[in-house]
Structure formats: C-alpha cells, structure tokens
C-alpha cells in the first residue's frame, strides 16, 4: 500500500491496540487460579502426606462384634475393611459394616446438645452448650438421688457389651436406680431361652458351621442376619469349597427363601410355625431308625413317639419321605449340625421350636463336637449384659411403669423402641408419660425425636470402648474400640457423658467412677484383664496395650471348650408344643405375615446410610422402598401384578405397600421387609416406605417373653393404585442363554 492516509493509519493503530489489549486480557483470563501450599505448623509424627495409615477398631453396626480396620488419609476415614487378625471376621466385612463411613460423615448427625422448646415430638429444639446440658441433667439426677427417688430413673440402651455396659451398670447402681434395660430387636430371646432350658447355659454356644458337612437350618438366615453373618459366611465358604473333594450340604427350612435359602442345596418351604415339629419328626425318625444309641434311647423314643412323621405329615406339610431323606442324610453325615432362628424362632412357641432343634443336635450327636455345637469357656469380660436384654414382656412391664407416670427421667442410648416395637404395644403412648426423656444419640431417630434433652454421642468410629463378641469363636477374646478420627462434631461418647455426669452428681460417685475419660477407663480395665492373664502382675502392660491398640483385638491363644451338657427327654415336655399359634382367624386373615430383617437395614438402624439405601436388596434388587412379597400363584389369584399397591391389614393394624412377586415364598405367606418407614431418621430414611411391625399383633412366646413377630395373620386388599418399585433387575430368568455356565448332561 503506497499511500496510507492519516485516518487509515490511526485505524490501523486502533485495530492493533484493541487486538493487543484483547490478547493481554485473554492471557490473563486463562491463567490458573492461585493455589496455596499450606504447611503444618507442627507435623504429627505418624503422619506423612499422601500415605494411608490403618487403625484397627470395633464395628458398631450390628451386635456381631466384628473387628474393623479403617484407612485414614490426612486425618479422614476413607474406607472400612475387616480386621485381618480378628478371629470373628478375619479381614472380611459385610455391606453394612462398610457403610459405617456413612454414619460417621452423615450430614444428618446431631451436631450439638439440644433442648426441646416446643411440644414433645414437635422437633423444635434449641442448641445449648455442653456445660449447660451436663449441669442441668447432672443436677436433676443428683437431686433425685438425694431425695431417694432414683428408682424413678430408667436407663434403656441397645445391645451394649464389654466395659461400657459395666460402666453404665455401675453408674446406675451408684445412683440407686435399679432399672437398666437393653432393648435390641435382633436379640434372639427364644434361642437363649431354649439354650437355658436344654443346655443350662445362658450363653450362645458356637455353631461350628465351618467344619460341619450337613447343615440343617430351621429358618436361621445365617448368611443374612442371624447372629454373626460375616463369620458364618466365612464358615459357609469353607464348608462348600474349603475341603478339597469334600463339599458340605446345606438344607434350609423356611416359608420364605432367605439369602441362606438361596444358597442352600435344598429349600423346604414348611408351613410357618411348624419348623419345630419337623425337627422333632426328624429326631423321631433318627431315634426310631437307630441313629441314636445313647443309654436313654428308650426314653427318647417314648418322648418322641407323638412326632412320627407319618402322623405329622399333614400338619407340617412335609411328607414322610422327605423326613426320611433328611434323617438318612443326618445319619450319613460325619458332622451334621442343626441351627434354628428367623421365623422358626419368632413363632408363638419359638422357644419350643428352638428346643426341638437343640434336641435334634443332641440326638445327632453334634453337641460338643467338631463341626457341631461347641460350648465356650467364660469370657474375659463379665458378660451379665445378657441379663439386661429386655424381652418384649419385660419392655411391657417397663412401659407400664412409665405409663403409670412413675418414671421421671428416662435415659436412652443407641436403641429405637418407638420404631422396633409394634404400635399395638402402646409403648410410644407410655413414653409420653415420662417426666424427662434424655437421649444420648448421634441421630434424630424416631425415639430420639421424643426426647426433651438430646446429648449428641460419637459414632463408634470416634469412641473408646471394647467388646466381647457373642458367640465367641471358641477362644476367649476381646475387641478394642479406639477413635480412628478426631471428633468431627461437638459430640461426646456415651461413656464420657456418664463419667461426666458422675462428677456432676458428686457424692460417692466420683470415688466409684474415678476415671475422667472413657480412654482412661478402658485402659484401666484392660490393665486388669492383663494382670489376670499375666497372673496378677501388670508388668509389661504398656507393651501389651500398644499391641492391643495396633491389632485391635486380644485373644487367648488357646481354644477352651467345655464338655457338652447332657440333655434329658424331659425338656420336650417342659418346652411344650412346638407348633405356633397365630393371631387372627384363618378365614378372615388368610395369610401369615413374616416381617423380615434385611441385611441392608437390620432392624431399621441402617436406613439412614445412603449406601445401604442404594444397595439393591440381594434377593429382589429393590431399592429405596418397602414391598410386599407374594407367591406368583397367590398374586394371580388376587389379580395382582408387581407394583400394585395393596392394603395389608391384621387385627393390629394396616399398611399399604406395593406388591413384589417373589418366586420362592409359600402361597399362604406374606413377607415384608423391616427397615423403612421411619418418621424421623434424616434425609435418607425419612418418609420412605412403611414399617411392617405396625401390623404385628402382641402375641408373645411365654417361655422367653419374646414377641412372636411371625405369628400374625393378615389379609390383603387391592387398592387399585400403582407405585412402580425401583429395582435394578430386568428379566431374572436366563432365557436358556446358559449365563451361569454350560448346561450339564443331567440337568
């Protein structure tokens, strides 16, 4: 361009300038945001960046008492795994246990002490600080103690074992308050009762599934929710494939196929409440066929005569041939083992049924024998917690006292009776009569929501404590629970709160409970354990303690077994009829209700854990909801399809829930999972599903005082509404695609 006019020149300058500016700003805008490199002021010694450390502790998700090992990065818990050296779970852990992180980091945890401002149950609370909470409560308890009105103080906890239990007991004792109860829906009262009756022991024996080669389970969902699932699963794996060329057989007798039923080789849907009879029928056949050769054989066959299979067949809905087969199997087996639980134990005569199972074990010669029922030595920590386990009957007495208005202060910890007791029990109403309800709780659950004062507790991952698993695995052991992370909210462990109260109250309590923190107390108690073991000296305890902290468990390195108790035929008469009776007439209420604990939620305590909510139910793949399981034929008769909302009603109550067509359930049984239907329990659980316990009539098993949850009859009505169940399954048949492996010739 030869001649550029002046204004053109300016234009070019402008263009260039604007361009340059734009370029500069652009470069500025794409710069990374400034990141900081923040050092520690004083680095902790066992810390280095980007490297994980593991702490061993105790799982608090269910009473099985597994040892856990938690992965910590930069002071935060990242993963929970089983403690490899723990004899109960040997490094393995169930889904619920692993979801413990959801409890620790749950967004709905109670973060500060709360005082009720509105009406009870209104959920209107004001945050207060700890001193205020402790002084007011301590003062209250103290004054009651002085007035000698301490017996008007009740303490109700969930299953609490080990030294925390002893601490609580001591505290109540010093306070002069006799009532300290533990209520846990999962506690198998009838099984305990039966064992007391037959074996004369008040402790669960160890069922050696691992080494047995024939496992007869009368309703016990040992892989699902029975006593110690993870340990049983380990044993099951060994039973199946652990011994080369020698595969154990499993038979499951239950009206609705449980997780264990699915894994069993044979599933026998005996009518609900007749499992006991079947056990006796087998026992009879065994004695009759000479499978039992004890000295008292004659007495046994006499006592068992009424249970001849041929006679019973119509009642127990299992024909004599099957009984014969099972009997042969037992006779052929080297290590037969019978276990009982679940619906069989939840009948109106659950104790009798469990007695029958025990008897069968005796006659099969499985007592005190490898692969059978083993009786362990005394535990290393006093285990009178069992005495405090309140059966339904005992809860009702306690409720009556409350109802009379004779309870001024009720201390609650780690239990949720409002949810876990049937409405018909009227517990909630009685609760309302209590002067002051104080809840030591991490979550605002159905019961905590009734409290006047709420003291937020640490979850187990933040607490000191210890535990003796029940049943022990043969060797006396104790699990140590230590905080794996620093408290994330302004909460305290139950033990610390109690110790704090003791000092508040004053009097002789501080002397009797001299420890200031739970840690100190546990350390002290373990010192005692140690000195007993070491023969009266506590030299070298510090080493021992370091070890314990590192391994998270201490076990005496030799198994100690007691001889098998003798069993007399008299127990049969003592136990009475093993056949269950039901609430409600058969023609008004054609179906039997089976409220079932699911592995995901246990008795509902897992419902606030998002991972559990999002975990497809192992048997149905349903998530987020309550469903009503029906047999296909039943559904067809009632013209019901999956997702049809039905109204299930018993003499005690009514609920509405969508139908799920379950292939493996008796046509005359309706199963509903427990766990959902919380009124208060945080964002993940609230207003979701319904609680089948509202249907349960208050039938109790006299011998154990347990609530017979499987002894209610119900009727079903189609509402016409639909509510499509959320599930992950598409089509649960393999359409001949041989997805589970090439078809075998014989199949």
């Amino acid at each position: 361009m030869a001649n550029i006019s002046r204004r053109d020149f300016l234009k070019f300058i402008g263009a260039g300038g604007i361009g340059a500016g734009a370029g500069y700003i652009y470069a500025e805008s794409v710069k990374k945001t400034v990141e900081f490199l923040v050092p520690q002021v004083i680095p902790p010694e066992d810390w280095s960046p980007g490297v994980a450390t593991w702490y061993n502790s105790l799982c608090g998700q269910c009473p099985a008492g597994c040892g856990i090992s938690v992965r910590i990065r930069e002071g935060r818990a990242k993963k929970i795994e089983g403690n490899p050296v723990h004899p109960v779970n040997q490094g393995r852990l169930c889904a619920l246990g692993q979801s413990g992180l959801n409890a620790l980091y749950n967004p709905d945890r109670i973060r500060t002490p709360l005082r009720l401002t509105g009406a009870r149950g209104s959920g209107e609370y004001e945050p207060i600080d700890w001193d205020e909470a402790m002084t007011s409560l301590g003062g209250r308890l103290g004054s009651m103690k002085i007035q000698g009105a301490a017996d008007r103080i009740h303490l109700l906890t969930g299953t609490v074992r080990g030294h925390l239990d002893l601490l609580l007991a001591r505290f109540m004792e010093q306070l002069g308050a006799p009532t300290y109860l533990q209520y846990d829906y999962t506690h198998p009262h009838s099984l305990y009762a039966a064992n007391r009756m037959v074996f004369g022991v008040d402790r669960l024996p160890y069922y050696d599934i691992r080494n047995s080669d024939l496992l007869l389970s009368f309703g016990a969902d040992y892989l699902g929710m029975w006593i110690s699932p993870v340990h049983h699963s380990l044993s099951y794996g060994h039973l199946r494939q652990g011994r080369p060329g020698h595969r154990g057989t499993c038979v499951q007798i239950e009206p609705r196929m449980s997780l264990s039923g699915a894994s069993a080789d044979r599933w026998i849907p005996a009518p609900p409440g007749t499992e006991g009879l079947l056990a006796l029928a087998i026992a009879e056949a065994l004695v009759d066929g000479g499978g039992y050769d004890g000295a008292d054989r004659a007495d046994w066959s006499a006592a068992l005569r009424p249970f001849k299979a041929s006679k019973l067949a119509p009642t127990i809905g299992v024909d004599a041939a099957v009984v014969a087969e099972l009997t042969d199997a037992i006779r052929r087996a080297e290590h037969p083992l019978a276990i009982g639980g679940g619906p069989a134990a939840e009948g109106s005569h659950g104790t009798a049924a469990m007695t029958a199972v025990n008897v069968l074990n005796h006659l099969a010669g499985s007592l005190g024998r490898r692969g059978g029922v083993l009786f362990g030595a005394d535990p290393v920590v006093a285990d009178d917690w069992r005495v405090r386990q309140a059966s339904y009957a005992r809860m009702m007495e306690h409720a009556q006292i409350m109802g009379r208005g004779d309870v001024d202060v009720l201390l609650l910890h780690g239990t949720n009776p409002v949810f876990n007791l049937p409405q018909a029990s009227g517990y909630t109403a009685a609760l309302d009569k209590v002067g002051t309800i104080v809840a030591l709780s991490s979550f605002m659950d159905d019961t905590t929501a009734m409290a006047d004062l709420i003291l937020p507790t640490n979850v187990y991952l933040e607490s000191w404590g210890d535990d003796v698993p029940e049943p022990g695995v043969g060797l006396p052991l104790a699990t140590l629970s230590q905080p794996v992370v620093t408290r994330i909210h302004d909460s305290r462990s139950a033990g610390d709160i109690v110790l704090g109260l003791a000092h508040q109250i004053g009097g002789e309590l501080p002397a009797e409970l001299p420890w200031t923190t739970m840690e100190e107390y546990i350390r002290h108690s373990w010192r005692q354990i140690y000195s007993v073991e070491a023969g009266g000296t506590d030299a070298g305890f510090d080493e021992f303690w370091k070890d314990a902290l590192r391994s998270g468990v201490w076990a005496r390195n030799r198994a100690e077994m007691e001889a098998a108790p003798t069993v007399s035929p008299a127990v049969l008469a003592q136990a009475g009829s093993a056949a269950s009776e039901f609430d409600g007439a058969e023609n008004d209420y054609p179906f039997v209700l089976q409220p079932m604990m699911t592995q995901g939620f246990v008795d509902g305590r897992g419902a606030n854990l998002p991972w559990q909510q999002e975990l497809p139910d192992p048997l149905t793949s349903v998530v987020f909801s309550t469903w009503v399981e029906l047999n296909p034929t039943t559904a067809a008769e009632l013209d019901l399809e999956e997702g049809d909302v039905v109204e299930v009603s018993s003499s005690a109550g009514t609920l509405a829930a969508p139908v799920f067509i379950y292939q493996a359930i008796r046509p005359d049984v309706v199963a509903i999972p427990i766990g959902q239907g919380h009124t208060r329990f945080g964002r993940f659980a609230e207003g979701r599903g319904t609680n089948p316990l509202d249907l349960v009539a208050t039938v109790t098993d006299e011998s154990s005082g347990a609530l017979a949850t499987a002894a209610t009859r119900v009727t079903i009505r189609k509402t016409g509404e639909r509510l499509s169940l959320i599930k992950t399954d598409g089509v649960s048949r393999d359409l001949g695609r041989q997805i589970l492996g090439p078809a075998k010739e014989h199949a």
Partner: protein
Amino acid sequence: MSVSVLEALQPFKKPVLLGLVGLLGFLVGDWANGRFNSDSAPVQPIEFSHRIHASENQIPCQYCHVYAARTPSAGVPSVSKCMGCHQSIATESPEIQKLHGYWEARQPIPWIKVHDVPDFVYFTHKRHIKADLECEQCHGPVETMDRITRVESLRMPWCIDCHTENQVEHGRDCWTCHK
C-alpha cells in the same frame, strides 16, 4: 461493466487488513502478558530465598522437603521446621520477623503454589527421585533463585517427552499417571 473479481474485492481490502493487524496485536498482547506478567514467579508471603539456603548455606533440598523421597508429595516444610533454625539465626531480619509472627500465632504460612501440575494427574515425587532425577531437572536452578520461578511448563506434552526420551517403563500408559 467489469466482472473482475479483484475489482469486486477492492472495498473488502481495508477491513481485512485491519483484521489482520488486530490479530497481530492479539498475539503480541498474549505474548506480552506471558513475558511481563507471568504467574510463574508469584510474590510469596515471606521473601524466602532458595539462593541463600540452597546455594550459600548449602542446605540439601531434602533437609527441608523431607517427604520428597518417601511420599508422593515433596511436602513444604512445617513452620516448626523453619523455627528450628530461625529461633536463633538471623532473627532480626524483617522477613524472619514475619516467620516468627506466624509461629507465635501458630498459623501456617500461605505459600503460593508455583509448581502446580494439572488436575487429574497422580504425580509422585518418590518415584522420580528414586529414579535418580535431579530436582533441577523439573524445578530449574532453584539454588540461584531468590524468588522461586517455574521454568518448565509442567504440562502433559512435557511429561510425555521426558518419559519417552528416558524410555520410562510403560511411561506412556495413561494409567501410569491418571487413575
């Protein structure tokens, strides 16, 4: 009447040229920003000089960056570490006064990150040091710097090139650095 394209294009000539000039300007501006206002050497809360420590006092890198050989991250020294020496040394200098300020307040020093690898990369110092790389290879002649400056781009092509030259075992498998 003409049908010549060039003629028709005449009036568009100037706008196009203007555009080009603008573009040129843009590039210049972009470059200028990098040159004169780069974020490769930010001003730190304390004028810490690597030259004094590493060069004059001959303190080895890992005396302060203790974690470098042991863990994925080199780790910036803790305040207590600094105080370890500066309790007594050069206490009167204003910069050290700042340090003391942080120490007494038990506050960490908010150092600005200079060598910041892109997100979603799992870089580990340990492996690189165990492979006998010199710190200088990535961090440049730190011992000559009063204010620490980024000399390498720390971007993926740079990583890949080095991995390729040194024939790092599976050094170009994505899962070596991304997870």
